[in-house]
């Protein structure tokens, strides 16, 4: 009897435990219900993985020129040959004919020659994760054999490899720019909202001044100021700086609004009454309680940076070769001749579209999960 009474409350206790989740778990569970968000997040993760191992996944070096295969259309991967089905995929060799009428080179599949695609083949040398040199690529047809999944550009460089490398640059620009703008925006937004008065006024007027200019023209003017003799990586960092110098304003405004809202709440008042210093209130009370908000607004801001970078690079004011980015790759398509004859040069545009869409979906999912009933 006694034993039963003692044990009776136990299941109740257990069910209560299973019903109460930490805030993090609640957000995670809500996020998992947002199907578009999960799909977007998965694509973003997959892309990050691809960009990290870009050289390993790419069959060719991005600057290697195949002069005999200039403007080659994307090659098809085949499983069926004249001998029937074979498990190992292959590409056909390439025959080219220069047409006498317009002097253009036309390519045909040479069904006599087959290049089977192997895993872990030797190709161009590269540095794996910036750590050690190797020449093993995930897949390929062997050195100097053609495998151009997305075709080639006007120098006969492999577009697929360049897409991976360019995607890494575009994505990194977005991430670094959001990081820099977050540092700027969070600091200034917090200061602005917390201290108010003259500092607040000054910061808000500065943001208004930035917003008074149309974004693309002011970005163009600032990137045109980057010295043309700078090496590629410095220009890359310069573009990141320019993007964040213009982009922090929106973030700072949001952080300021959030700071004002939380600053009036009871727990901050309690802390203040207890004699907490400003530093403690900011770092222990304000910042942690807007952390989810910061993650959401920064996820939603990354696509904007990526779009701006691609626009700048497309106009020739952004990333410079030998680095490449999706915008820079699309610049090759900006003439009617190339556009009508070599439409595969538009593939980088599809990549931009997919990336930005996925990031938007991920951001929407996170936003709905972090604050289901509030609208931003």
């Amino acid at each position, binding site marked *: 009897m006694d034993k039963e009474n003692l044990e009776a409350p136990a299941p109740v206790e257990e069910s209560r435990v299973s019903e109460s989740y930490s805030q993090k778990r609640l957000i995670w569970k809500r996020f998992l219900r947002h199907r578009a968000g999960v799909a977007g997040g998965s694509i973003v993760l997959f892309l990050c993985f691809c960009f990290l191992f870009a050289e390993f996944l790419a069959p060719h070096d991005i600057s290697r020129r195949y002069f005999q295969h200039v403007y080659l259309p994307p090659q098809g991967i085949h499983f069926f040959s004249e001998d029937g089905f074979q498990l190992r995929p292959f590409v056909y060799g390439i025959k080219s004919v220069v047409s006498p009428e317009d002097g253009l080179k036309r390519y045909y599949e040479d069904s006599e020659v087959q290049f089977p695609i192997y895993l872990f083949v030797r190709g161009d040398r590269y540095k794996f994760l910036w750590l050690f040199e190797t020449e093993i690529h995930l897949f390929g047809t062997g050195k100097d054999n053609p495998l151009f999944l997305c075709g080639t550009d006007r120098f006969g460089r492999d577009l697929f490899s360049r897409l991976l490398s360019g995607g890494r640059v575009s994505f990194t620009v977005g991430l670094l720019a959001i990081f820099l703008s977050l540092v700027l925006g969070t600091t200034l937004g917090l200061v602005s909202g917390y201290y108010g008065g003259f500092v607040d006024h000054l910061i808000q*007027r500065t943001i*208004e*001044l930035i*917003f*008074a*200019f*149309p*974004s*693309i*023209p*002011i970005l*163009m*003017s*600032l990137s*045109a*100021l980057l010295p043309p003799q700078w090496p590629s990586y410095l220009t890359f960092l310069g573009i990141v700086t320019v993007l964040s110098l213009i982009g922090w304003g929106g973030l700072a405004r949001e952080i300021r609004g959030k700071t004002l809202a939380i600053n009036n709440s009871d727990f901050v008042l309690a802390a203040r009454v207890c004699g907490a210093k400003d530093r403690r209130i900011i770092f222990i009370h304000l910042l942690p309680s807007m952390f989810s908000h910061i993650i959401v607004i920064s996820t939603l801001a990354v*696509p904007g940076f990526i*779009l701006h970078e*691609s*626009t700048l690079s*497309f*106009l*020739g*004011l952004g990333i410079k070769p030998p680095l490449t980015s999706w915008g820079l790759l*699309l610049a090759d*398509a*900006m003439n*009617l001749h190339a*556009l*009508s004859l070599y*439409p595969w040069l*538009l593939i980088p*545009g599809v990549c*931009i*579209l997919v990336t*930005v*869409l996925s990031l*938007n*979906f991920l951001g929407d999912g996170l936003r709905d999960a972090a604050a289901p009933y509030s*609208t931003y």
Partner: protein
Amino acid sequence: MHSYIIRRILHMVPTLILISMASFVVIQLPPGDMLTSKLAKLEEQGEMGSESALEQVAVLRERYGLNDPIYVQYFRWIGNIIMHLDFGESFTFEMDVIELLSERMGLTLLMTISTLIFTWIVAIPIGVYSATRPYSIGDYGFTFIGFIGLATPNFLLALVFLFFQVSVFETQSVGGLLSPEFVGAPWTLAKVKDLMTHIWVPIIVIGASGTASIIRVMRGNLLDILGQQHIQTGRAKGLREIKVIVKYGVRIAINPLVSRLGLELPNLLSGAVVTGIVLGLPTAGPLFLTALTSQDMYLAGAFLLLSSSFLLVGNLFADIALAWLDPRIRYG
């Protein structure tokens, strides 16, 4: 209301001054003054070293007062603009900036404003449709198209348009705002008509992402409002559904759109610049890009100053319209 408008206009003055200062900083930032590039140009022509070239540069340096301290230069620059509408000289084109820019700037602004009207005309009915039939197939379709529109950069859409015009319609006379016979001709009724037949391509390209975002905002706003009690009251009184939606719903849901104009206009203007470059339109965009790449800074600065002033005026109109539309706004 009048005092509100006057105060609002006065409020613009400090911003305008700051904008002009920022534009001037952009002009001044490249290393060397603009005569450095002039000198280089003369050098290329093989005139460098000759008395006349040096003399010419010295005269120009004196004329533009490049030896004066920077604030004197600023006041001279802004003074010339205010008093004589003189934005300086473009060194690449060897013309007055104002002459070079006026028609192109006008076309750019015309394109921006027509795009604005276009986005509203297209987006509001779609937004209303989506909000009154939420989670229907049509709603999902428009939402999907909207997401694509938001994710497509302007230049990509312009490229796609070019691609279709070249490969599907097989016309080579793509881009451009005017038929060849009207380029450079004085403005007549026929020219305006010709402009109208060409302008819709850039308008769609520029307006795509704006339309998408307005649809989203309109749908969200109207959905919120249609759930409120005054809508229920209207229906309970036996009003026709169309009247409930238009007079009780859309009328209120429009207000946030007007206040969003301040965000909308800069995007449209940015889009007009990029689209102008890709489609090769005779607008200010291509000129601005040339100015930047050849460090023709007076031209670039003039464009920055003019476009941001335009945005300021746009914001002014948006604020006035909002105060007039929304009785809840206190402006007394």
